[in-house]
């Protein structure tokens, strides 16, 4: 198993990880169909990082995300998020923890067909945070502006493009101002133009707000936007890399260390990383 420990992570992002997965194991099936979807994976994520978890289908990346985000109980191992061992909490406490700290974006936008873009976002503020109608409206206005959806606020999902729907879904996740945003294949249902729009938005979010973004994807075009790549294969951590965020930040912010990454800003997003040895 490849472990962190080059010292790079700590030097750049500080010593306190916001999220730690420790020796996580999750198996499915029994008897002949038994398989370990995630097999003794440990990783740390630091505040404000935009982390991409990649790997082929069945590599266990979504299962790992589910365990890290408090949605799926690991068979073994621990998840420490913001100093809290989230799987030692009871269901209600974990639900409250997610409410206080976590946002989610999924591949399927999962928007209520009968509600407008504005209502989709307001609903989370009202139901989740107990905001009054006026408070929720004010919060949503700010967010819609930021998501470039102000003029689409009155439309229902059927009237929105895929990219707009995903932006509404991101708005729904952001209205709570989460510390960590978990995204599962947020661009895979979109063409690249819309996908790029979405990933830029996630990237800006992590930079501007200090929100940590943990994103599962198999789309290699997202790599240049990431601070860090976590590559999984057959449920195991294959390699980790750091530093592709050329689109929004100068490379000098993240010193190139030989053998780790190539910090050159890609003219066009392409897969450009080198694995740690």
């Amino acid at each position, binding site marked *: 198993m490849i472990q962190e420990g080059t010292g790079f992570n700590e030097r750049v992002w500080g010593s306190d990880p916001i999220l730690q997965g420790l020796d996580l194991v999750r198996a499915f099936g029994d008897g002949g169909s038994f398989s370990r979807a995630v097999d003794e994976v440990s990783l740390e994520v630091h505040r404000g990082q935009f982390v991409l978890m990649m790997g082929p289908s069945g590599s266990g990346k*979504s299962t790992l995300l589910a365990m890290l985000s408090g949605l*799926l109980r690991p068979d073994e191992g621990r998840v420490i998020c913001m100093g809290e061992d989230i799987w030692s909490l009871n269901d209600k406490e974990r639900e409250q923890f997610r*409410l206080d700290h976590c946002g*989610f974006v999924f591949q399927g936008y999962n928007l209520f067909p009968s509600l407008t873009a504005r209502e989709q976002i307001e609903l989370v503020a009202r*139901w989740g945070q107990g905001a009054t109608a006026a408070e929720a409206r004010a919060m949503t206005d700010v967010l819609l502006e930021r998501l470039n959806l102000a003029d689409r606020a009155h439309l229902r999902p059927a009237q929105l493009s895929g990219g707009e729907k995903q932006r509404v879904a991101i708005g729904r*996740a952001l209205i709570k101002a989460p510390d960590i945003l978990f995204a599962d294949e947020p661009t895979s249902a979109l063409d690249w133009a819309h996908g790029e729009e979405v990933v830029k938005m996630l990237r800006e979010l992590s930079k501007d707000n200090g929100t940590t973004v943990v994103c599962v994807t198999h789309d290699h075009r997202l790599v240049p936007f990431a601070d860090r790549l976590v590559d999984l294969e057959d449920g195991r951590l294959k390699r980790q890399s750091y530093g592709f965020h050329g689109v929004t930040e100068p490379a000098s912010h993240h010193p190139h260390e030989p053998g780790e990454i190539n910090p050159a800003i890609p003219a066009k997003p392409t897969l450009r990383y080198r694995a740690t040895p």
Partner: protein
Amino acid sequence: MSYALTTLWHERQRYLTAILAVAFCALLGCVQFGLLLGLFSITSMPVDNSRADIWLGAPKVLGVDLGRPIRESQALARLASHPDIERVEGFLQGFSYWARKDGGQELCMVVGSRLEPGSMGRNTALERYPHLAEALTEPGTVVFDESDKEKLGVTKVGDVAEVAGARVRVVGFVKGAKGLAAPFIFCSLTTARPLLRCFPGQITYALGKVKKNASPEDVVSSLRRQYAPAPPKGEGASGKDMGTLSIQNEAQKEAAEENALGQDSQAELSIFTSAEFSRRTRVHWLTKTKGGFALGYAAVLGLMVGAVVTSQTLYSATASSIKEFAVLKAMGIPRWRVSLHVMTLAAWVGVIGIGVAIPAVFGLAAVAEMWGVQMKLEGWLLVTVSVVTLFMAIGAGLFALRSLRGVEPALLLR
């Protein structure tokens, strides 16, 4: 607008089935019980169509149509003894037999009252026919509802028939006074006595009118107190017979024994306000005939059908949004909040369904009225049926909550 209402409006085609099911339940309940009340209100019609405030009758009388003869002088004097009673008069009502020309016999309900304008017992159905009220002052004359002509074998004014062996002549017909099983035969007190085989000096009820500003309830209570209740005995002892006026002292006992009415020495007279007596009459027939139970059964079945349809509609609607709810759950929004949304949906389905049903009920009542069938849609009935239907819809919502058990955010991850 609440999210539930927005959802309901936007997905109205999906929820239409549930709304119609709820509307059907409310409609069924209101129509069935309205018809039943309308049907049995016929039995209390002589009370409802009178101007009397207080009715005094034989001991433990069950309803206005089941009165027995009492001594006129005693009953009227007793009622008139109260200072708040303005005037009193006698009233006769009872079942008898109408002999048709073809030899057949029909059960009929003879109603004998004073006939002068403003008299308490004169049925308001006669108000529109002052000439008939006048004609009825001639002994041996009767009128009845024109829809009962065929039943009684009468074709025209002037026809002659026999009631309980006494000859009567039909002097006219009225409208809106149709009997339930036995046609109402309206006549004077003088005519009614032989038809009911009553002796002179006997009446079935003494009617009282209270003075202006006096309350009939207070007068009835006062009369009951004045003639202290009899020692516990039978139905009266159990407190069931609220309107019992006891005759306690020896003189009264003797008088009661002496009267030729066949009552025992512990004779008690019953006293009611008009509203009490009307209700007592209807409730008696409602329970006696078990009609209420039969229709209640059908209404419960209707409610069950409505509950199942509503529940299944809500269940499938909720199940179709399970991924959206799963996202909310992933974000930590508590399950109760989502459940409350489903329950709000159910409540709105109920409210809208009832809103659809009530105008339809009044429409059906108007149609029924055109066919001569009375549907009595009292406020309490509409409120009760609405509340029961609303609870049914909310109960269906509770049942539909089981679809939320499948809300599992981890399933959203590929």
